[in-house]
């Protein structure tokens, strides 16, 4: 009688296994070019996932002679999934990695090819500025090709109509900032009879990560970008420098006088966007382009005029340099066994930046996504561009319209002006000297340490601690690992710059 129970469960189990069907066998790589090279490419998803075998993928496969198979992973869980793939050694031929402790560990373990020495053999890859590659280096070695992004993206966007009404200019010094902020908040530039407008609006990430508003403001005033380093290799975090502290003091004053949003410590970026787009806030640091703010704000405030200015301080243009990449493409040794095969993949990556491919990745298919309009190109269907082209534009290497693109797209003047400043920014960026430095305590407790100081900053700005309290927080930070972090950065820095 018991047998029947076993029989039932056993048959269900077998059915499950049979239905699951085994995975396809491994294909042997063809290196001589007689057959398309079978290439699996793992990237993060951007927006909707394009259907397999669409026109763009077909064009890439034809041009590069590959049998391309792209696996998209949701951006929200990308790192976890990649960690599992690395741990289980279930890797494709080409994978997008982020610059984080786990991947750095895997790179150090030699699980990926070091491509640095080969870059010079590939014309398109070699044409890109050294800095892009330096920014993804691990112990001075380069393990991939970055997904290029602008190095200095910060520009200042502002409501020109407001500043004109108030008779003001885009702010330069901290005093300017105070005056502009006060005027916008108190002098009612939108003429609705209420004090319901702000200048700069802060969100809860105002002092974190690459796009930190506080860092952007402070750097313009002469502060370092996250870390300062002197000739002997001594590292000092930005928050221990004078210009940064002055900037913090300004923000504290703005908060006390109600000139910035009082809920800044808990507010999401998307909430902030709403304030800007509904015409309630007038000035912001932005990595985007001014035109998109203009387009959005006129839906709510038809008379709004947006303008853009470079980030400028008392010492002229100065802005924090960013990583210059949205991750990088690495080649696992597990799946790509020979140097020959690795070179084939590098060639594929290089080919993606040829003029024909660059145009395809940036603009899409001619006469479907864009058309030739004399001196410029025109986007034919914005929706199709976002749904069908953007996923490739964001996940395959290209320099947008800055490299190997024959004709620029037709764009409003404001967009071009934004772009111009971003391009010029390369000359004015302040690099972060600790960006690629190796530090054990950072990989272990970096976030925790950062949280100590960013929290203390918020408390200081909100008046919960005074200057002595802030100094105490710095001492605390030093004791809990800050000193070690500074020492480790120094050591790593001296090792590389010997």
């Amino acid at each position, binding site marked *: 009688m018991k047998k029947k129970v076993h029989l039932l469960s056993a048959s269900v189990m077998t059915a499950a296994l049979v239905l699951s069907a085994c995975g396809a066998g491994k294909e042997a790589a063809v290196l001589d070019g007689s057959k398309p090279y079978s290439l699996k490419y793992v990237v993060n998803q951007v927006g909707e996932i394009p259907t397999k075998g669409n026109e763009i993928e077909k064009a890439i496969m034809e041009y590069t002679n590959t049998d391309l198979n792209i696996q998209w992973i949701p*951006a929200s869980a990308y790192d976890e999934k990649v960690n599992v793939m690395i*741990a289980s050694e279930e890797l494709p031929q080409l994978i997008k990695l982020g610059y984080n402790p786990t991947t750095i560990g895997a790179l150090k373990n030699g699980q990926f090819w070091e491509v640095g020495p080969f870059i010079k053999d590939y014309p398109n890859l070699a044409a890109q500025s050294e800095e892009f590659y330096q920014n993804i280096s691990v112990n001075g070695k380069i393990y991939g090709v970055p997904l290029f992004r602008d190095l200095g993206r910060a520009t200042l966007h502002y409501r020109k109509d407001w500043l004109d009404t108030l008779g003001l200019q885009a702010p330069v010094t901290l005093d300017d900032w105070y005056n502009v902020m006060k005027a916008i908040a108190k002098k009612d530039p939108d003429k609705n009879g209420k004090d319901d407008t702000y200048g700069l609006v802060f969100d809860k990430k105002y002092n974190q990560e690459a796009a930190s508003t506080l860092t952007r403001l402070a750097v313009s005033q002469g502060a370092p970008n996250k870390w300062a380093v002197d000739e002997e290799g001594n590292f000092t975090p930005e928050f221990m420098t004078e210009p940064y502290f002055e900037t913090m003091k300004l923000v504290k004053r703005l908060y006390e006088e109600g000139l910035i949003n009082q809920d800044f410590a808990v507010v999401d970026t998307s909430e902030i966007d709403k304030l800007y787009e509904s015409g309630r806030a007038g000035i912001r640091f932005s990595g985007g382009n001014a035109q998109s703010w203009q387009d959005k704000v006129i839906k709510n405030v038809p008379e709004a005029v947006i303008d853009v200015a470079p980030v400028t301080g008392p010492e002229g243009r100065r802005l924090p340099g960013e990583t210059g990449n949205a991750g990088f493409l690495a080649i696992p040794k597990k799946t790509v066994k020979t140097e020959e095969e690795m070179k084939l993949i590098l060639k594929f990556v290089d080919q993606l930046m040829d003029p024909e491919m660059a145009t395809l990745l940036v603009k899409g298919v001619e006469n479907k996504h864009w058309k030739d309009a004399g001196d410029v190109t025109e986007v034919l269907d914005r929706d199709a561009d976002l749904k069908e082209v953007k996923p490739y534009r964001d996940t395959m290497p290209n320099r947008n319209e800055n490299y190997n693109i024959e004709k620029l797209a037709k764009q409003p003047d404001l967009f071009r002006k934004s772009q111009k400043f971003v391009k010029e920014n390369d000359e004015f960026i302040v690099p972060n000297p600790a960006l690629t430095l190796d530090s054990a305590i950072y990989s272990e407790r970096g976030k925790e340490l950062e949280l100590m100081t960013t929290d203390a900053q918020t408390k200081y700005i909100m008046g919960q601690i005074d200057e002595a309290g802030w100094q105490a927080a710095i001492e605390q930070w030093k004791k809990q690992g800050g000193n070690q972090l500074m020492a480790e950065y120094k050591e790593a820095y001296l090792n590389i710059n010997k």
Partner: protein
Amino acid sequence: MKQDKTIGNRLFDIINNSLLLFVALACSLPFIYVVAVSFTSPAQVAQGGIILFPKEWSLSAYRYIFSTDTLMRSMMVSIYITVVGTFINLVFTSLMAYPLAKRHLRGRRTIMMGVLFTMLFGGGLIPTYFVVKALHLTDTLWSLMIPTAISAFNLIVLKNFFQQIPDGLEDSAKIDGCNDLGVLIRIVLPLSLPAMATFGLFYAVGHWNQFFNAILYINDNTKWPIQVLLREIVILASGRIGDTNIDDAEIQPLTIRMAVIVFATLPILVVYPFLQKHFAKGAMLGSVKG
């Protein structure tokens, strides 16, 4: 039922009712807000004008989310794993719980210890992944149903539930010529309907909310359940997850995000009231009539 209308009683009623009303509102208002936003025109939302009732009705968000078949396809995947997965859960859980409820089963304690052990110590992410991979379950929907076929906690509760069923019932069934499986299917399970419905709902909600396993085990994006999509659409907009290239990404408008949430919640919300009554029944309906 007749009640004493003393002042104390009335006061208690008033306080009690208003407290419950408050809790009920606190639970449902956010969802009502989400529904309202999803039906409002995007321009209205940008101005921040809506509170609980849209001023300008609009179906544009829903039109947008149904403009491609991605969402529908994921919905089908979710429905599939919920229905089939829950069925598998119930079959396996009851098949294991029933023998464990029998005192005469040899090795019962050892097996129970084994079950308890898995509740306290898990294999960890990577080893589990290896097991799933070795069974060739990766990239199939089975990977979302088989590894979670039996929840140790539910198993134990169900076992205890089965133990409450009087032995006399089964004895009489056996005298009438029923075998063990027959007793389970004809006598025990029909008596356990409320329990089965309860666990079915637990399991079903679990399957419906399936997210991380899907990311882990499924590479083919056409097999993603709805939660993966949902999280992608909602998280990308609110957190911006610190990725440097999100800054210039087109963020989906709030109305669309809300519409997706409503769409993803609807099915489970529709099913819930029908199963809910079984909760109320709670314990078994005892009777030793043959």
